[in-house]
């Protein structure tokens, strides 16, 4: 046993730009994704999907497919009838949940609706077999547009319901009608927020493996929520939960699309158990664009009331949300988040919001990066800009005028949220300074004098994240962490979150390394395996560090407390005299010091077990937050529009974000960069297009545009750090920030550029063509 330890200058990690420990395996192709998994005797599944948006299935001929050598089985809706419906967590009183089976039965409701599954010895044969299946469809009338769907006498998506209303939701506070009556100015805008395909780099995929002897089912799935999925599978398959194991191997991006319980997951499990063979199903990119729940999908009508001096007094919002033909896990909940976040960073005195979910013959919509909050911020920031223009006020000034002061925190919004902490003006000032707002306005004057269309767009946004207190989340909002210190002093962290690109293996290692005074390489972070981690909620809504990290923080405190007892006992001093600093236990009452590893060994050898103490050095803690956390920030963008082609060039893009305390600035910036790209995509190019027959028209990457590196501006990031008060780390979350802040900044900039032509709104995506059209119309009139 070491009796003395030298204490070298210890390296600390929190707050440093530490490179991701995940990256070497990801960029050298040595990481294991679902499609890398091979099991002996594994079969391959492929799914036949409906080419019609609405049709009755009058017959399915599978004989030719079955006759193809290599085809092992073919399943139709009735063959899998024993599997329970795809779950939906929604709780509105009037919520209608149509029977959502894993394969269609009598009818198909959208293009891409799964109809038949084929299982073969390889995926090529499975794909060939799909061509041999003949489904007789009797096409029925289609309702594709959500607003049309809500009209009297519209074709019904689900004939069992009298109309296409999937659910309604209302919230109000204060006397909003009076606010509008007494306002000096009011204005209104109808704003479309198009459907977006999530496009994770890795599409969905599963491998289901049934162990007949142990009666144990293992599902490898590219998921963000392995534990919740396991519980849901137990229900869907009517199986004891402890016989199911879900593993999320490397997950190549999710953006919310894998925070779901998908038909193909239960399907693969059912087939694996039926055939007693491992089953692999890998989604194609085309399927992914077609059926992986699209995000956004709103038609919003927003109205705002203001006093002459710019005080915002009232807000009204009506949302028509195109939910598609079926609900997925969180479909009805997502648009309610838009209602909650509607007030943004402003002190409104009254508001009224109503929301209708409309069934349509389209693929289900559900959460997508930001989920509700980008929609809210977009419509709010648009209408605030429009109001500033009406008032003849600078758009920066109207924002400053309506922020709560730092002293007002915790600040209760008109929608009843308690914003934890914030200094909105500070972040905004920083952004304005960074871009040199005054100089930009000067530049604009000059440009306008020369007849050029130059615009400056501002967006100040708030976010609700770190999901969340359990009462506010459908399946628990807590998180769990176990810290196991090994005899050699190495540390294993088991976390219930399920990172898929966020980098918590790195940030958690940084936290552990600092807490225990050990190198990061002494830490391993394990996640995404329900057989290793007792339970967890998963990774979504920027909850990884705030909730998962806080649970880890608590567990590490327990570890230090117990280790301190050991150290005191070994040093033969009173525990109160022992301090643990920089990885060293020392006491004023002893000369000898102990390293973290020394104590770890002792907790395993137990030669001197402190009285009332158990062997071992492990701790498991759960963290339940008291509230959401509320990051915020300001994005500002300058653009120039080419009048002849309608092309927009982003000249500068500044993002100042406050996500509370920062563990790793590199990870934060990565999230902002990616988020800004994902926010700018829909601003100028992205959006799923359906025709009135419910056909998805841009179903490939040759037609569905997402931003490439060459489309992106140089993103100038900066930050303020206002600690959160709802978790011990003071962190908030940054996963959605970029997506929320960037889009309105761009749109406001383009509208600002076009404003000399009398333009006060253009819907997104603001493609060169759509801008050109607006310019044409305006110059004609």
């Amino acid at each position, binding site marked *: 046993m070491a009796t003395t330890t030298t204490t070298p200058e210890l390296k600390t990690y929190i707050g440093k730009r530490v490179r991701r420990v995940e990256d070497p395996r990801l960029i050298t192709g040595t990481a294991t994704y679902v499609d890398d998994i091979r099991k002996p005797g594994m079969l391959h599944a492929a799914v036949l999907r409906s*080419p*019609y*948006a609405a049709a009755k299935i009058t017959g399915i001929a599978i004989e030719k497919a079955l006759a193809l050598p290599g085809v092992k089985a073919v399943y139709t809706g009735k063959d899998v009838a024993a599997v329970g419906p795809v779950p939906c967590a929604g709780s509105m009183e009037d919520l209608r949940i149509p029977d959502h089976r894993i394969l269609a039965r009598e009818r198909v409701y959208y*293009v891409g609706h799964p109809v038949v599954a084929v299982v073969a010895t390889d995926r090529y044969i499975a794909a060939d077999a799909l*061509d041999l299946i003949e489904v007789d469809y009797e096409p029925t009338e289609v309702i594709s547009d959500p607003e049309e769907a809500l009209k009297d006498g519209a074709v019904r998506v689900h004939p069992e319901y009298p109309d296409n209303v999937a659910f309604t939701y209302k919230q109000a506070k204060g006397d909003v009608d009076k606010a509008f009556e007494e306002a000096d100015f009011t204005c209104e805008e109808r704003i479309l927020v198009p459907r977006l395909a999530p496009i994770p780099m890795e599409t969905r995929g599963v491998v289901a493996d049934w162990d007949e002897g142990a009666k144990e089912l293992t599902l490898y799935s590219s998921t963000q929520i392995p534990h919740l999925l396991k519980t849901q599978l137990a229900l869907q398959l009517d199986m004891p939960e402890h016989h199911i194991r879900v593993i999320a191997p490397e997950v190549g991006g999710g953006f919310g699309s894998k925070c779901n319980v998908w038909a193909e997951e239960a399907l693969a499990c059912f087939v694996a158990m039926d055939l007693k063979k491992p089953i692999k199903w890998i989604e194609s990119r*085309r399927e992914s664009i*077609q059926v992986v729940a699209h995000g956004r999908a709103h038609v919003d009508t927003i109205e705002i009331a203001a006093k002459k001096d710019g005080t915002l007094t009232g807000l009204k919002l009506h949302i028509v949300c195109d939910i598609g033909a079926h609900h997925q896990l969180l479909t009805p909940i997502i648009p309610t988040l838009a209602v909650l976040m509607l007030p943004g960073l402003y002190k409104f005195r009254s508001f009224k919001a109503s929301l209708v979910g409309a069934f349509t013959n389209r693929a289900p919509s559900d959460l997508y990066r930001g989920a509700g909050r980008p929609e809210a911020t977009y419509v709010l920031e648009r209408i605030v800009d429009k109001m500033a223009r009406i008032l003849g006020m600078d758009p920066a000034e109207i924002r400053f005028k309506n922020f709560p002061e730092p002293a007002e925190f915790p600040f209760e919004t008109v929608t009843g949220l308690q914003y934890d902490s914030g200094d909105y003006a500070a972040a905004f000032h920083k952004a304005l300074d960074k871009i040199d707002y005054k100089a930009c306005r000067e530049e604009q004057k000059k440009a306008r004098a020369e007849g050029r269309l130059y615009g400056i767009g501002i967006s100040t946004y708030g976010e609700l994240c770190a999901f969340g207190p359990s009462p506010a989340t459908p399946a628990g909002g807590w998180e769990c962490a176990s810290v196991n210190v090994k005899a050699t002093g190495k540390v294993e962290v088991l976390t219930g979150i399920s990172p898929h690109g966020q980098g918590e293996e790195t940030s958690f290692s940084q936290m552990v390394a600092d807490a225990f005074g050990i190198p990061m390489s002494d830490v391993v972070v394990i996640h995404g395996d329900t057989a290793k981690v007792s339970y967890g909620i998963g990774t979504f809504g920027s909850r990884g560090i705030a909730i998962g990290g806080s649970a880890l923080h608590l567990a590490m405190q327990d570890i230090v407390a117990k280790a301190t007892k050991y150290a005191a006992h070994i040093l033969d001093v009173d525990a109160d005299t022992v301090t643990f600093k920089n990885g060293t236990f020392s006491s004023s009452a002893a000369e000898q010091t102990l390293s973290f590893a020394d104590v770890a060994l002792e907790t395993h050898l137990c030669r001197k077990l402190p009285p009332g103490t158990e062997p071992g050095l492990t701790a498991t803690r759960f963290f339940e937050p008291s509230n959401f956390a509320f990051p915020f920030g300001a994005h500002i963008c300058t653009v120039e529009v080419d009048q002849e082609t309608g092309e927009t060039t982003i000249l500068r893009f500044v993002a100042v974000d406050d996500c509370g305390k920062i563990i790793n600035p590199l990870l934060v910036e990565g999230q902002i960069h990616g988020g800004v790209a994902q926010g700018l995509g829909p601003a100028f190019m992205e959006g799923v297009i359906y*025709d009135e*027959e419910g*056909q*998805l*028209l*841009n*179903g*490939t990457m*040759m*037609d569905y545009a997402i931003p490439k590196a060459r489309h992106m501006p140089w993103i100038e990031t900066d930050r303020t750090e206002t600690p959160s008060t709802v978790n011990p780390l003071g962190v908030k979350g940054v996963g959605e920030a970029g997506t929320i802040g960037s889009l309105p900044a761009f749109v406001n900039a383009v509208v600002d550029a076009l404003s000399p032509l009398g333009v006060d709104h253009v819907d997104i995506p603001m493609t060169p063509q759509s801008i050109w059209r607006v310019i044409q119309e305006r110059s004609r009139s």
Partner: protein
Amino acid sequence: MKLKGTYAMPAPRDEVWAALLDPAVLARTLPGCKSLQETGPDEYAMQMSLVISSVKGLFEGKVRIMDQQPPESYRIEVEGRGKIGFVNGGGAFLLKDAGDVTDIDYEGEVKVGGMIASVGQRLMDMTSKMMIKRFFTALEDEITERE
């Protein structure tokens, strides 16, 4: 997708009318038509093989001719299904005497679904324009050769 245009056919209207409504002529002039069989009054079953570059699609479908006002106007409805998707369309034809030629005004709408709708949008406009051109050129050859 909407289609609209006029083709000046260098033949008298009666002759053009007769050719346009002659199943045997149509079978020879409709691009890719493999067979056209009468299944009822003014109703036909059609097999079509669409070949554009390396794309090949076999369609089976129905053709109905309606609202005939000889030799002036009629409507046509087409419905086809194949492995790569389905096509539904309808259009009106109006024949007008214009001196030496007969102007054929056509106006219609084509709706496609399935694979071709979601991956082939970029090619839709040019493909349909090309098919129309092929059809009228073949028809013109047919009519002018007859003389």
